[in-house]
């Protein structure tokens, strides 16, 4: 029984260490005593280790089927497959908040450890801010929604007695899916990761840390969190697609919107940060983007957990709302005060020179992303806002979000192609023609072919044109750089492109990310051609959808350890040849009286055949099959994988060229002002950090 208590003691100790780290940190900033700085840092690290121990102990309770713990009883049972005990750990409010603290503590520990001997002016502030964030979550973990509550009962003598149950209530069937093991950790790693850039930005502001060093630090950590957030959002979309069985992957549900908003602001930051690095502009804007990103992550957590906005898959609701609102209020106050007192520290060095310049493309990129955030936020909070303003609760649906965000998406796609090729400060017409002439012409040709083939949807045609355009500009960029290297080193173009990428990973990794985004856009545009068909299909019945011919061959009812299932066996033919057998099924979990749908998908690059067994018809008791034909969906997942690869690439430190090559390159004449240098002249940025 002692192990049941281990976790809650570890959490309590973590809370106490957190208070010490916070207070000692503040004292260290005031007194500048090296020993105190060190002690505060070590306390911060101890908090992290203790949170890990608490999480490990919760995991242990799940894996040993300890049904004396209330939380384990609610989310697990004996027949639950071992690998599904992982998602059970974070299936409820208590566990997911501890999981939150756990991931945050990994970040905090890394930051404190990596910079233990660096940035002595900055790190004490960072430590205090991170300890503050951890303290908030530890307060919830310890005193509000502890996962370590034991089942107790007052015995005959009035003494509370320990009670253990024989079995638990089992895991929500919607979560009994392998993706639920990866999706929450990845998405939470995104959410929690934005705490680090927030801490650095606020620390730099409070400590008036000189120079742009902090922005380099912030950018790296943002990129890590951004990569996780991107992957997490797409994994979530894929889970919704494969599990919820309604044929789509995105429904503008508050939970989805909550994860999208910080992603949008972080994307804006990753772009506008270059303005600060290269031109010393947008300092105020950048600091606020980092602040807002962090606030949006906390707001997102609030939305999904407090029932402020009703959502179909808000998985956990409770009365912890006031805590979160209080925390958000506190963060906003701290940010505003910190900004107001140090605003002169953020003054800009330069102003905008021209409408057609790299700066202006970043400016518009940021503006558009921010409009998207405002639209998504107001749409999500519409019921709350309308109740305040007009007294009646009004919600807006997908048409609202699509109307605003489709043009925004396409405009962003356009900037993705244009931005990287515009010169800083000012771009001449001649260079515009040189850089964009061919890609744009071929893009328009592609659009024309699309129209000739029968495309009529304006957005789809635009998406086709822009996708070709952006892909070509990205390829041209690689080609130009690779040609220069290849001419000097004698190696082939492909190898040179690799060398080029490794020498400026941030830039070329960024292009890879852009290419992934293009694929995602192509995938999304497929939704314009979705079709679906639903019919009663007794065994032997047939259905035609698109090029596919479906035959219902068999219908089975079986009993598994944890659930009973009804499964249809459907043969899929195409051009009179069988391509695959699909087994859509419907599972029933007796332990919690819930059921789940297992969608069967036949996925090709061209389209997904998505088959759902929708239950039995109430009139005839015959199985009902709902088939969807969703074009190009696979491109979204492919694009997502490429986005993640590009992000990883951008995080790899730059490789320096060999000495001889550097000599050769330094002789390349640079026409015009440095800012006008054609992009193929390889410029080396000093590796940051």
């Amino acid at each position, binding site marked *: 029984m002692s192990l049941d208590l281990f976790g809650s003691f570890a959490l309590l100790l973590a809370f106490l260490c957190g208070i010490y780290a916070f207070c000692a940190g503040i004292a260290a900033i005031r007194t500048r005593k090296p020993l105190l700085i060190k002690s505060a840092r070590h306390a911060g690290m101890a908090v992290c280790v203790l949170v890990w121990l608490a999480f490990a102990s919760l995991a242990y309770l799940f894996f040993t089927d300890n049904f004396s713990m209330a939380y384990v009883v609610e989310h697990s049972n004996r027949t639950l497959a071992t690998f599904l005990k992982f998602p059970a750990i974070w299936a409820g409010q208590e566990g997911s908040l501890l999981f939150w603290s756990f991931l945050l503590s990994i970040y905090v520990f890394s930051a404190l450890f990596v910079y233990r001997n660096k940035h002595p002016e900055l790190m004490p502030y960072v430590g205090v801010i991170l300890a503050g964030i951890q303290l908030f979550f530890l307060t919830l973990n310890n005193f509000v929604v502890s996962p370590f509550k034991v089942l107790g009962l007052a015995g005959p003598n009035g003494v509370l007695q320990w009670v253990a149950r024989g079995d638990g209530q089992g895991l929500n069937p919607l979560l009994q899916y392998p993706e639920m093991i990866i999706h929450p950790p990845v998405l939470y790693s995104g959410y929690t990761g934005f705490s680090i850039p927030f801490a650095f930005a606020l620390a730099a502001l409070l400590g008036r840390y000189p120079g742009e060093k902090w922005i380099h630090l912030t950018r790296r950590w943002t990129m890590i969190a951004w990569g996780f957030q991107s992957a997490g959002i797409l994994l979530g979309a894929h889970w919704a697609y494969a599990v919820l069985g309604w044929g789509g992957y995105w429904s503008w549900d508050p939970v989805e919107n909550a994860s999208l908003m910080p992603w949008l602001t972080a994307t804006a930051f990753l772009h506008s940060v270059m303005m600060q690095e290269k031109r010393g502009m947008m300092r105020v804007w950048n600091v606020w983007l980092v602040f807002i990103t962090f606030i949006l992550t906390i707001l997102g957590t609030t939305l999904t957990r407090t029932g402020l906005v009703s959502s179909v898959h808000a*998985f956990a609701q409770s009365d912890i709302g006031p805590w979160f609102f209080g925390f958000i209020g506190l963060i906003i106050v701290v940010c505003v005060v910190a900004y107001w007192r140090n605003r002169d520290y953020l003054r800009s060095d330069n102003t905008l020179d021209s409408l057609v310049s790299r700066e202006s493309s970043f400016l*518009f990129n940021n503006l558009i992303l921010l409009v998207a955030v405002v*639209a998504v936020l107001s749409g999500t909070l519409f019921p709350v806002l309308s109740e305040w303003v007009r007294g009646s609760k009004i919600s807006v*649906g997908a048409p609202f979000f699509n109307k605003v965000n489709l043009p925004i998406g396409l405009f962003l796609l356009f900037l993705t192609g244009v931005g990287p090729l515009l010169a800083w400060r000012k771009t001449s017409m001649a260079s515009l023609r040189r850089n964009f002439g061919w890609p744009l012409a071929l893009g328009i040709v592609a659009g024309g072919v699309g129209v000739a083939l029968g495309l009529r949807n304006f957005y789809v045609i635009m998406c086709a044109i822009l996708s070709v355009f952006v892909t070509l500009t990205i390829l041209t960029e690689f080609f130009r750089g690779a040609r220069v290297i290849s001419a000097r080193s004698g190696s082939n173009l492909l190898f040179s492109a690799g060398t080029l990428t490794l020498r400026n990973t941030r830039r070329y990794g960024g292009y890879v990310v852009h290419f992934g985004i293009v694929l995602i856009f192509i995938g999304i545009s497929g939704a314009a051609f979705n079709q679906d068909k*639903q019919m009663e299909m007794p065994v032997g019945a047939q259905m035609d959808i698109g090029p596919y011919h479906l035959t219902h061959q068999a219908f089975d009812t079986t009993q598994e350890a944890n659930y009973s299932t009804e499964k249809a066996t459907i043969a899929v033919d195409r051009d009179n040849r069988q391509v695959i057998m699909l087994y859509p099924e419907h599972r029933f979990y007796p332990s919690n009286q819930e059921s789940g749908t297992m969608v069967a998908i036949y996925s090709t690059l061209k389209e997904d055949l998505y088959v759902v067994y929708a239950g039995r018809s109430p009139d005839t008791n015959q199985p009902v099959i709902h088939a969807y034909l969703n074009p190009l969906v696979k491109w979204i997942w492919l694009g997502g994988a490429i986005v993640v690869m590009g992000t990883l690439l951008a995080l790899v430190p730059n490789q320096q060229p060999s000495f001889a090559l550097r000599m050769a390159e330094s002789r390349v004449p640079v026409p015009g002002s440095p800012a006008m240098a054609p992009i193929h002249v390889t410029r080396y940025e000093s590796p940051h950090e």
Partner: protein
Amino acid sequence: MKVKTKFGIGIAIIVITLSSLAWIGAKESKTYYHTVAELPTLNSTEMRQRIRVGGDVAAGSIQHMPGRVDFTLKEADKTLHVSYVGSDPLPDTFKDGAQALVEGRAMPDGRFVAEQVQSKCASKYEAAPGGTIPADGAPQTAPADPRS
């Protein structure tokens, strides 16, 4: 023209275009929340709007008819008769006692014709732990369905 003015115009065009799109989109998909008790008191303009109503599915009220599913929503002591005419199958979680959110239009005769039904279980995930423990505290097998 000054660069700043150019930017101002550019920004204004973008913001105005997008806000008008947002306005149109909001108008198209606006749905009004009402409580079951409010429905009979609505005036004719309000009746024509798209309405969303939430409540609990009354036990034993779900009746499958050809082409539609009838059921009764309960909220406190008020009830609402709903006919679901949508083409999608009802969600798995839709059953007696579940919380349901129906979207559609109110009919003059007091019935509600729903095109969409969302539902979630009166969640066990919120149930206070320990609340259903038997008095003797003996180890138990699977606890009773918390929704019953």
